[in-house]
């Protein structure tokens, strides 16, 4: 049945006002006798004006975003190239870096990275690894890296060091080594490795404060300016029983490692690290009490001292967050953290935390009288199952420090 243009337009107009009856005008020339005829007429009217769908500006933009796989490109990189952060210490400034990865999912893989920051920090690294060597639960990696950190803070040794004594120095290093990781049981990793390391120190470039050389005596900065290369051998064991290492809510992680740094004169030092983490659901995954205790002990071989830049530090993004990075350091350090996390949203946790720690030149000198404490609140952004970023607002007797980091505190 053919219809006039007027009739078609009128019927289409009725379509634009859903729920309203078909207009009487539309029926003037030939009122439908049946429901089917009426629907046919409405479809005839629409056919006369049918046109491809159009997108709004926002829809066009988001369609492009989807089709170009923008997020995948950002996260996955391009032909193996991807962005990297460089793993610089807090205070290094804004960073930018590039990495290249190839292979590695099951067979041999290689990763090259290079990064720098606005304050002149630089790092270049290469890692070649073989996962599950010969089908056994053994991974082998060969690593090399060079870095230069020109504005490392130093406040002096011990808990008596003063905030106002802040100085800075340059720390550079070149190292090359290999390590083997054996995973005999789920969650259990035993690691052993050896590396040649060549640390160097010098005057810092941060003009806002004196250099370490100017601010401290040589006796307060053992190893400063020395040109000593070390052979580092290390062994460690790591038992990881966390429910989800990328975003834990229950379980624990218990790690111990011992390293020996030996120079060509058979002098050097030992370093032992203990890190214990426990996650307690209260009573479920939506509220978690995260606990951590860490300790680092160093001891020099006879007639030698532990270079100050190899001594453990407290303060910064992962322990004593209310203090500046490297605020306290000495040959031995102990720290504890307690963090209460609650799920505010599926992608966001709130956190309140308290950190406490102390350093001392001798293990027996560690005591509860000289403990620094910091506390604060924070937000943890995450996906359904992986941590993404955290923003902490940390307080201490030395002030307030905001921290934005892309790795979990623990």
């Amino acid at each position, binding site marked *: 049945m053919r219809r006039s243009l007027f009739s078609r337009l009128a019927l289409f107009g009725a379509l634009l006002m859903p729920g309203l*009856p078909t207009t009487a005008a539309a029926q003037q020339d030939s009122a439908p006798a049946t429901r*089917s005829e009426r629907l046919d007429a409405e479809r005839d009217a629409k056919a006369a004006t*049918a046109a491809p*769908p159009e997108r709004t500006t926002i829809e066009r933009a988001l369609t492009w975003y989807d089709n*170009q796989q923008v997020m995948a490109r950002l996260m996955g990189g391009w032909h193996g190239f991807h962005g990297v952060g460089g793993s610089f210490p807090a205070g290094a400034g804004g960073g930018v870096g590039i990495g290249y990865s190839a292979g590695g999912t*099951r067979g041999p893989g290689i990763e090259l990275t290079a990064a720098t920051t606005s304050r002149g920090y630089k790092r270049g690294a290469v890692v070649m690894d073989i996962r599950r060597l010969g089908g056994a639960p053994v991974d082998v990696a060969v690593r090399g890296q060079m870095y230069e950190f020109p504005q490392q803070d130093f406040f002096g040794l011990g808990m008596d060091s003063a905030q106002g004594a802040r100085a800075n120095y340059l720390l550079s290093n070149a190292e090359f080594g290999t390590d083997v990781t054996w995973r005999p049981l789920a969650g259990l990793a035993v690691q052993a490795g050896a590396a040649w390391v060549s640390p160097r120190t010098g005057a810092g470039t941060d003009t806002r404060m004196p250099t370490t050389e100017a601010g401290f005596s040589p006796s307060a900065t053992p190893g400063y300016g020395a040109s000593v290369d070390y052979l580092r051998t290390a062994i460690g064991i790591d038992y990881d029983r966390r429910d989800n290492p990328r975003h834990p809510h229950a379980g624990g992680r218990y790690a111990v490692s011992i390293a020996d740094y030996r120079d060509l004169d058979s002098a050097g030092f030992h370093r032992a690290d203990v890190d214990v983490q426990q996650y307690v659901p209260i009573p479920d995954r*939506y509220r978690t009490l995260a606990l951590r205790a860490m300790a680092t002990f160093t001891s020099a071989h006879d007639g030698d001292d532990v270079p100050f830049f190899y001594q453990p530090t407290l303060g910064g993004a992962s322990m004593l967050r209310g203090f500046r990075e490297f605020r306290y350091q000495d040959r031995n350090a102990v720290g504890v953290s307690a963090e*209460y996390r609650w799920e505010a949203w599926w992608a966001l946790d709130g956190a309140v935390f308290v950190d406490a720690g102390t350093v001392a030149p001798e293990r027996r000198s560690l005591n509860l009288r000289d403990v620094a404490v910091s506390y604060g609140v924070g937000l943890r952004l995450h996906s359904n199952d992986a941590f993404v970023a955290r923003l902490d607002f940390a307080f201490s007797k030395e002030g307030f420090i905001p921290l934005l980091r892309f790795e979990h505190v623990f």
Partner: protein
Amino acid sequence: MSSKAVVASLAAVFAVTLAAGVIVDAQRVERWHGEGEPRFYTDDPIWIDDDRRDIPPVAPFELSKSYEFVNETFGGSASSFGPALNVNTLGEVPDSSWFTNRLGRHDMTIEEVLRGPDTVDGPVDGPWLVTGRPDAGLTPKFTIQDGRGDTYLIKLDPAGAPELPSSVELISTKIFHAIGYQVPEDYLVTFDRAQLSIAPGARMRTASGGKRAMKAADLDAWLADTPRTPSGTIRALASRYVPGRVVGQFRYSGTRSDDPNDLYPHERRRELRGMRVFAAWLHHDDARSINSLDSYVTDNGRRYLRHYLQDFGSNLGSGSTSAQQPRGGYEYLIEGDKIAKGLFSFGLWTRDWTRARYPANASLGNVEAAYFEPWKWKTEYPQPAFDQMDAADAFWAARIAARFSDQMLRSIVEIGRLSDLEASRYLADVLIARRDKVVAYWLTRTTPLDAFAIVETGGGTALTFENAAVKAGVASSRATSRVRWTALDNQTGRQTPIGEETAAAGDVALVPASAWGPRDASGARYAVAWIASSHPDFTHWARPVQVTLRQRAGGIDVVGVERPTGATDDRR
């Protein structure tokens, strides 16, 4: 304003709304006819909406999943509001390119339900050519061509959830098909790596977004972590490509401007609004445009768009690549008030759904029935058709859900072939319990009188009916009904009250001889019964269902049923 004042205000608003609802319902009769149009046409009620008329080729138009999320979360795409428009005068959904009445209108054997949309027996065993890998979706997948030349999408189960996505997708496909939706043919398959070879020219998108030729090593990598059966083969879901040429997806709002057959705004289509009931039942929180298909098909010489639901891999306990998130089905991805409450309560406030307990079984994921409450259930983000579901839409859907027998559901779960029989039993129990909950809730939100029929009795012609809620066992039999009659002038829509309201003993109401209105142009006469029900547990059943009878040469038939749309989520 104090809390008491708020409650009082809300109560007042509710009371006024309830009162107005009766009036509005009475006025809704106008929906069926415009000025000068008859209220009922001679071919009413239609059971086929002929939207399969031949149309010119349609260009592909892919929807953006990001836009859909942003638009529905922060704005909302619906532009048409009100009751469903695509129903016939009985309130039923006619067959169309969207929906085919199956179990809801016809008896189906269990074998027919299990057969579902299948036209073959799955991909032919033997060598399969891997032809590509789709970009969309989360599930690891690739496409193959079998020896017959048919193309299938092979969806792999993730390492941490063996048998989970494949079983729930197959189960959901069978159920949605039996309900009446168009769905792809899905098959559970097992295959060996040796069966697969890369087709010449096969390309794939890399993790970094670029495209390159597919290599055997890619296939090895995808299959490396895929769970193996005890015999070492790989179990997967093979989803046969739908017939025709896919030209995008359909939205759950508006119409497609290049499809002349697409008349009704999708948010006003009963089968899309009522789908919320089925989605809640099957925990299909991924019911969104991106998981639909529009295919330009040729059928009996006519070319038109057929509309499919697809991708049920995130149903029941599955979240496609892992178990369903506990939030799924209970909270939108973004709900500002809950985020604020969650953050500033320091964990003292917890969401109700965190109390749900799930089986510790990787092949079941997070599915349960004990905590499930139909009225609280939600999709991942607001869905315009679901948001407009009213009590009449929900009643339509619940009545279909009630048609699935326990045995039918157990048989459907069995073809999911979970190797843990205890898990299979649990899943069937959960499906049955969730069905019972959606039926019990949504069947009672409106006046559930149904199955209207004309019988001749010793006293004359009578209208019989039954209470669907009582029949389904979700309401006690303490319901009583009362009827009043009006004579309808079909041409003007005017109704004239006849007599007083009377009790309908035994759900039978004699049709008064005086109830018939004047003859219309076709010679037919009409009478309307306003039937209200009284039940101590469901006071809103006092809102009457309008049942229109038509008397014409062929006798008397029921031509119209309009039930109160009511408020669907008064308990949300």
